[in-house]
């Protein structure tokens, strides 16, 4: 089975295909090959989402993993994050969850739980 990828390294957006013998074609530069090799081997993504708080003014705080995590763990990570409730004032960059799902990535706040400015 052939697999198709759209390369996102540059705006050209080459459509790159990989066949059963792992031959890569359709890329117009070497960066496309590297991109597809990574996507085949171990695709990772930064997860951005929100976390509940007890604060009336900011009922949700935005957060993210500070490193990309394996793509197949995105939904599991969402479950973990959706179980958390922030009860203390928090600053941008503060760790909310350490080493989520043993990925080595922390979930950190991307917004302060700011009171009215």
């Amino acid at each position, binding site marked *: 089975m052939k697999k198709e990828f*759209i390369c996102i390294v540059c*705006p050209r957006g080459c459509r790159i295909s990989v066949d059963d013998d792992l031959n890569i074609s359709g890329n117009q530069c070497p960066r496309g090959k590297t991109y597809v090799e990574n996507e085949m081997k171990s695709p990772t993504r930064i997860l951005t989402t929100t976390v509940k708080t007890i604060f009336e003014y900011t009922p949700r705080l935005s957060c993210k993993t500070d490193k990309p995590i394996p793509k197949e763990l995105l939904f599991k990570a*969402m479950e973990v994050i959706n179980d958390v409730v922030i009860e203390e004032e928090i600053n941008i960059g503060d760790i909310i969850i350490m080493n989520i799902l043993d990925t080595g990535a922390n979930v950190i706040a991307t917004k302060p739980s*700011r009171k009215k400015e």
Partner: protein
Amino acid sequence: MMKDVIVIGGGAGGLAAAIEIHQAGKDVLLIEREEFLGGILNQCIHNGFGLEVFKEEYTGPEYANQFIDVFLQEKIDYLLDTTVIGLKKEGHIFTVETSNESQGIEFYQTQTVVVSTGSYERTRGQISIPGDRPYGVITAGSAQRYLNTDGLLVGKKVFILGSGDIGLIMARRMKLEGAEVLGVAEIMPHSNGLNRNIVQCLNDFDIPLYLSHTVTEIIADDHQRLSKIKVSKVDESFRVIKGSEKVFEVDTLLLSIGLIPDVTILDDLGVEIDKRTKSVKVNQAYETNIEGLFVCGNALQVHDLVDNVTLESKRAGQAVVRYLNKDKVKENHTLSLNPGTNLAYITPQRLDMGLEQENISLSFRSRKKMEKAVCKIYQNSQLIFEKKLFFVLPAEMETIQLPFKTIQDQGDLKVELEVKS
């Protein structure tokens, strides 16, 4: 009490302009209608902001905070929860009318005004989809705000009309929060969103993208809630192809069909409008035909990258300072800048020849995807400047620098995109 400058809007654009002007020693007041600074960035919790200005991949709120911190350190005057509801000019003085729940109506006077009020989303009324008018049809940006700032998921079975970036980002976001996202329909044969979003928001989650498709009917249940939509294929002239109809059972239809600059507060001032950008016409100082009135950010033209809003608004801020310092060569004439072949629009639309500066930043969008394009600028049928552009796409605004000294004193300018032969 008379201000040097009033900045309307506290998003990326307003903040950048206010900081620039304040740092030049001018007296600034910024007015924001929300109860927080940062504008639309606050609800854009995904990452990918700031590659150019900060060489970082910030999320929207992180990007906003970089500027909010500086803004607060500078101790610039500002009002939150305050909406500008009127703007008038008498003689050389602007009067800004504001409304606030506890203060009521107030008036502020100023020598100059910077309008950085952002953009609003096109709604169903602007594209007229036939069918019922049930609950459950909502713009993608509103759904984004409900979900990311209030924690409310607007639906469980979602379809998205329009492949703009907001729609793509929301497809992923709602999917991650447990909604079923049945597909995205785009009437054009190509997507309007960035490739990166097609890949990471749709392909990653096996959400189908229906190109050359549109929603042809909206059907409500007995309780005035959305229950079904019909999606059909269109031909090259956007005519619906009979028999191509698919039915989707959904409770939510998100509309991601474009942004329009919000300059409604300028309605009474008699500003010149550009029908291409759907905003005002400005010169290279971002000044409108009303002296002392400046416009920048999404209020001037819809930007896909916040870095471009920041850079543009800083330039606008510098121009305001120049204006207040009366730094203009002589009362002079203006030339008009017109979009030619393959250009959807261009800003600025005018050049003020009395405002000499080293380079003039020109921003435009192409009408189609072009590889190895050349941007050519003509004046009096003569080529005065050209620049190679590796790749242009309608989804990505381009900005180039035109050296002032290449411009002749007389004759309108025309900007075109050609494929390099």
